[in-house]
């Protein structure tokens, strides 16, 4: 099973001829992902790692069986690319691009909502269902197949935790990168809803951080509706208010989204909260043992 991407995913890479697009197409193919087409305006007829390139998503769709897009185009053109994918009827769009203006993100989400499209990101490491499909820039070798679902706001910290789970013999179902921006297609609750219905997923690891109230909303959802064990780690305990910690999202603004409020909410919902990242596998084992 897994969620959002799996063996039925057939992807187009928008921006496939660019530096990152080309490199990560190779990596995704090496992972085993079905990359069926690439898009780069004016480059129709070329190929990248054997993947045929088209001028537009509609052209790619006419020629190839695709249902998902992964976007590597520069920030100034990312909204347009994502809207193109949504308008072409693709059901999932993974936006890797960072530095997208927040108003572009809001316009994009407005369209996606209307069309019923799932947007992963922007500014995400992507999404990976262990053993079947990776779309994004997360390293290939850290995953192993199993029952742990991951949902995270930040990248490298998550790689760290995935690697520690794998080292501990705890394989993964799907690892979802929400992305570091303030406006994103998915949030913890939306992903937890999917994990709830996924038979492969036995427990979920949430990697949160300061800023926003998505973790607090997740705690409320876990308390009232979620039916599997959850372990959380929240980054940013030491962050001063009002300073943006790298991610546009990671900022304590107007007293909202503090480390304390997130940890308290999660604990009150029965979620185990790791104080340090490497405590996660042990907490997962304990949670599964209950």
């Amino acid at each position, binding site marked *: 099973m897994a969620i959002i991407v799996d063996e039925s995913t057939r992807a187009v890479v928008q921006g496939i001829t660019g530096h990152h697009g080309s490199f990560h197409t190779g990596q995704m193919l090496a992972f085993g992902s079905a990359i069926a087409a690439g898009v780069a305006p004016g480059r129709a007829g070329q190929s990248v790692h054997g993947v045929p390139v088209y001028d537009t998503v509609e052209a790619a769709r006419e020629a190839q069986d695709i249902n998902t897009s992964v976007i590597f185009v520069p920030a100034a053109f990312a909204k347009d690319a994502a809207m193109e994918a949504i308008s072409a009827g693709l059901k999932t769009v993974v936006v890797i691009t960072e530095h997208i203006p927040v108003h572009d993100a809001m316009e994009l989400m407005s369209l996606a909502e209307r069309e019923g499209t799932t947007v992963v990101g922007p500014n995400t490491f992507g999404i990976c269902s262990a053993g079947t499909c990776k779309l994004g820039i997360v390293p290939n070798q850290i995953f192993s197949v199993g029952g742990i679902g991951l949902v995270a706001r930040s990248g490298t910290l998550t790689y760290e935790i995935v*690697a520690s789970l794998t080292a501990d013999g705890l394989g993964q179902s799907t690892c979802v990168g929400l992305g570091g921006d303030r406006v994103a297609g998915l949030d913890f609750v939306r992903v937890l809803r999917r994990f709830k219905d996924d038979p492969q997923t036995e427990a979920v690891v949430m990697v949160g951080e300061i800023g926003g109230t998505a973790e607090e909303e997740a705690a409320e959802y876990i308390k009232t509706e979620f039916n599997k064990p959850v372990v959380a780690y929240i980054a940013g305990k030491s962050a001063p208010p009002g300073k943006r910690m790298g991610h546009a999202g990671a900022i304590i603004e107007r007293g909202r989204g503090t480390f304390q409020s997130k940890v308290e909410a999660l604990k009150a919902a029965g979620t185990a909260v790791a104080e340090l990242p490497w405590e996660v596998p042990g907490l997962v084992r304990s949670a599964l043992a209950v």
Partner: protein
Amino acid sequence: MKLYEYLAKEVFARRGIPVPRGGVASTPEEAEARAREVGGPVAVKSQVLAGGRGKAGGITFADTPAQAREAAERLLGTELKGLTIEKVLVEEKLAIRHEIYLGVAIDRSARRPLIIASAKGGINIEEIPEEDIVRRTVDVAVGVEPFVGREIVRRLGLDQAVGKQVADILARLYKVFRANDAELTEINPLVVVEGGRVIAADGRLNVDDEALYRHKELPYVEERTGLEKKIHDLGVSYVALEGDIAVIANGAGITMGTLDTLMYYGGRPANFLDAGGGTGSDEMAAAISLLLETGPSAFLVNIFGGITRCDEVAKALIQARQASGADVPFVIRLVGTNEAEGHRILRENGMEAFRSMAEAAQKVVALASSRASAAS
């Protein structure tokens, strides 16, 4: 990017939002001239990017142009909330009958713009009781149609004459928000003056940094210090903190996690520096050099090599350290692709290399405190 009040008000005025008569001044003489143009009593308002200027003494009133000059003399060049006052805004003094709060922000959960309004303006929005605040998200595909304004002023309980003006100003403020790629725009207070006219007595406009490239028409307001700016120009995120241990990691989350770990073991981070996933070795070396200029007692580097190979990271770190020539101890935690080779290279070059974050953090804390006691 935050705009000064006077710049925000210029943007407001261009969109038809009523603002007080007046103008900005960089010298006492200019302040006097502005006050003369206004005629009658004026407010002299320090232009710094901080709230609570009134309470901090940054806003004074003057009955005559001479008094306005004196007020500007007292304010200009001094510090308010740690910021130097370089300009004052000289405006007609308003006969305030009622203060309203009006703002447009971003609702992350709804993924939409959020209108925030209260009939109890004038104070910080966080201090207004929740039941006195009206919130409403906006679909960007529709915008703020007149009915939205009518509904909001109804909920605020404003009378018909004031309500019409506030509804109109709200529609314009939303356009300011959208047209300028704002993260936040606020009028607080939006005042009802004697006679019933509604005027934006203050103005805030924070523009999304990621969208500045398409707003060449806006003046650039630099908020960063010299060092912050230099490091930012390398394409990395940097925040100065109070401690003594310099930190570099690759990724915002892992960097925060590194700071948290450091503090857990009793260390005090000197900064947050996220070198990102795709930062090249040249940029990392440059960032290290800049951090060394701040005189840290030790350095903690935490790298998870995913796509990046650990051997390459090791080489870059050695280069950077050699180029800087500084005597500060480096503790490096390095895992991931080509990990063993990376560790070999580091150890051969006399740098401490760990696989565990805990060990690296404990080591750097120990080194920093021994240097601190040696120095004292």
